[in-house]
């Protein structure tokens, strides 16, 4: 037997950052429960993640001790709430290496964040004096891809309808990768914005964006990356990505529902007209007209989800404490294990990359011709929670000629034993529908 020595000076195997998965699991109260008489096997974290006690405690503590509205009170509680809310913004900004805290806009979720950008374009298109980069009309083009979540398709279809611009898209290869072969044609002088998913919620593909970014810069367009599935699972650095906007959502990264993030470059956010009007987003209001606050407040009309934002800050602390590089490595190992294990199930077909490279821990598959609803139902009877359906990415299902898929998705608390339980459950499915 020979062993291959990694040359000194190169990263060694033991250099890989690790964490104690059992200790992490103990932080998540829900992982103790049973489903249909079986221990819970939760393989649906791409849909929503579970929340550790550290986040739940902060959420409860905020309402129990610090509850008040933000940005408008001189009293002590109001000051505490405002500090907690703005503190969370600073944590989120640091988490994605945003150059400025003011580049983080709190939204309801990724969907709202994308819609804010799309409507800012729309509103700018109605104003002749608006920044020309944000103005769209007939002849201009918007580029997305065939592997987008509906939330990164429909807002652009609507924007195209309103402005007369044309919507175009990158196709997907048979292996579930982004087909960049038409890049120079697709992204051209007419392109105003390219909005792409960073990691596909259905295929698991992590898109390499550097060639696209270079082309976007070359033609003077803007780039939005939907990082809903990547921010929870890997270190994300907006400077390194060189995007103009990224969006992500709290509930997929150990935070609560109802809180999401739009990150945008300072000068772009400053150039964007407001989208929602109301309290907190103004500078001054008269009956004759209003002027608007600087970002991020300009895009946060009304009372924001305060406790949710604070708890998202706690989620960021939690993830940072474990270490995003460690989480990324652990999930890469899980993904390799799962691809191997699923590859041994007779009749199973994986949609998306079949190697654990350039992909995350989200795996869609078909089991023979058993409908995914039936797969999911049998798995549920065994305590195994997977998502079935089109995963809000129907064009991907159409691309691969299926109405729906079954999807298993992992997170920092997932274990190889749970993947074994999935594989055993699939055996049961095959028996019922043999």
């Amino acid at each position, binding site marked *: 037997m020979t062993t291959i020595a990694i040359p000194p000076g190169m990263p060694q195997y033991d250099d890989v950052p690790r964490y104690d998965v059992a200790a992490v699991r103990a932080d998540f109260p829900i992982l103790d429960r049973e489903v249909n008489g079986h221990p819970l096997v939760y393989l649906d974290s791409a849909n929503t993640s579970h929340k550790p006690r550290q986040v739940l405690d902060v959420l409860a503590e905020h309402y129990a001790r610090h509850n008040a509205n933000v940005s408008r009170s001189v009293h002590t509680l109001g000051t505490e709430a405002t500090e907690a809310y703005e503190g969370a913004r600073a944590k989120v900004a640091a988490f994605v290496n945003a150059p400025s805290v003011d580049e983080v806009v709190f939204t309801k979720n990724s969907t709202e964040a994308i819609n804010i950008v799309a409507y800012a374009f729309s509103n700018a298109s109605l104003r002749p004096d608006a920044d020309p980069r944000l103005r769209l009309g007939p002849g201009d083009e918007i580029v997305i891809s065939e592997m987008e979540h509906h939330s990164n398709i429909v807002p652009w279809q609507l924007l195209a309808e309103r402005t007369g611009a044309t919507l175009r898209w990158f196709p997907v290869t048979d292996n579930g990768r982004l087909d960049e072969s038409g890049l120079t044609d697709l992204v051209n002088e007419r392109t105003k914005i390219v909005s792409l998913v960073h990691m596909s919620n259905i295929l698991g593909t992590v898109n390499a964006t550097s060639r696209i970014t270079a082309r976007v810069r070359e033609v003077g367009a803007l780039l939005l990356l939907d990082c809903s599935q990547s921010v929870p699972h890997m270190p994300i650095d907006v400077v390194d990505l060189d995007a103009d906007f990224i969006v992500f959502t709290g509930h997929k990264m150990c935070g609560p529902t109802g809180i999401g993030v739009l990150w945008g470059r300072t000068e772009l956010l400053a150039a964007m007209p407001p989208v929602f009007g109301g309290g907190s987003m103004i500078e001054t209001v008269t009956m004759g007209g209003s002027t608007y606050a600087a970002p991020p407040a300009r895009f946060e009309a009304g009372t924001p989800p305060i406790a949710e934002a604070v708890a998202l800050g706690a989620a960021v602390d939690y993830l940072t404490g474990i270490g995003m590089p460690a989480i990324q490595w652990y999930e890469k190992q899980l993904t390799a294990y799962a691809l191997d294990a699923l590859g041994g199930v007779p009749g199973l077909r994986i949609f998306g990359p079949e190697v654990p490279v350039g992909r995350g821990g989200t795996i869609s598959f078909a089991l023979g011709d058993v*409908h995914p609803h039936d797969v999911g139902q049998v798995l549920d009877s065994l305590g195994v929670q997977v998502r079935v359906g089109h995963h809000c990415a129907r064009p991907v299902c159409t691309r691969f000629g299926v109405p729906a898929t079954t999807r298993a998705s992992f997170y920092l608390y997932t274990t190889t034993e749970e993947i074994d339980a999935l594989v055993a459950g699939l055996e049961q499915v095959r028996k019922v529908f043999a």
Partner: protein
Amino acid sequence: MQLESLYQEIILDHYKHPHGRGLRDAADPADRVGEAHHVNPTCGDEITVRVATDGATLHDVSYDGMGCSISQASASVLHELLTGRGATEAFEVHEAFVALMSGRGQVTPDEDVLGDGVAFEGVARYPARVKCALLPWMAFKDAAARAGVGASPTEVKA
């Protein structure tokens, strides 16, 4: 929950060996034909149901679609129960099936009315699957209305 109550032998049998599958033209050219295509937007299941009738009798209830075992078996049972029936009687069966599916497992089905449809009693206890079972029946209702029989299409609480 017992999986067997959902996947009854009768349901699996209809799924694996569907009765009357495939869209057919009316045998009698004088028949009125109505067709409806329904989708379940959450899962992508689709069904097309076609009704051929002289206004009094449903000469054929044909269908085609893709979907889970529950929706496809339900279409097979729909065909079997309603083809050849008088329109009034057919809608009584329809009503009984919808009542069964909306009953959260509290409705005892009458086998004389519902035939193999009684096997769907267990499905009513799985709220996530009730829509699967109802999909062909809702499409039937629209198709029948377009062929000039039955009430106009209405929403039924699933």
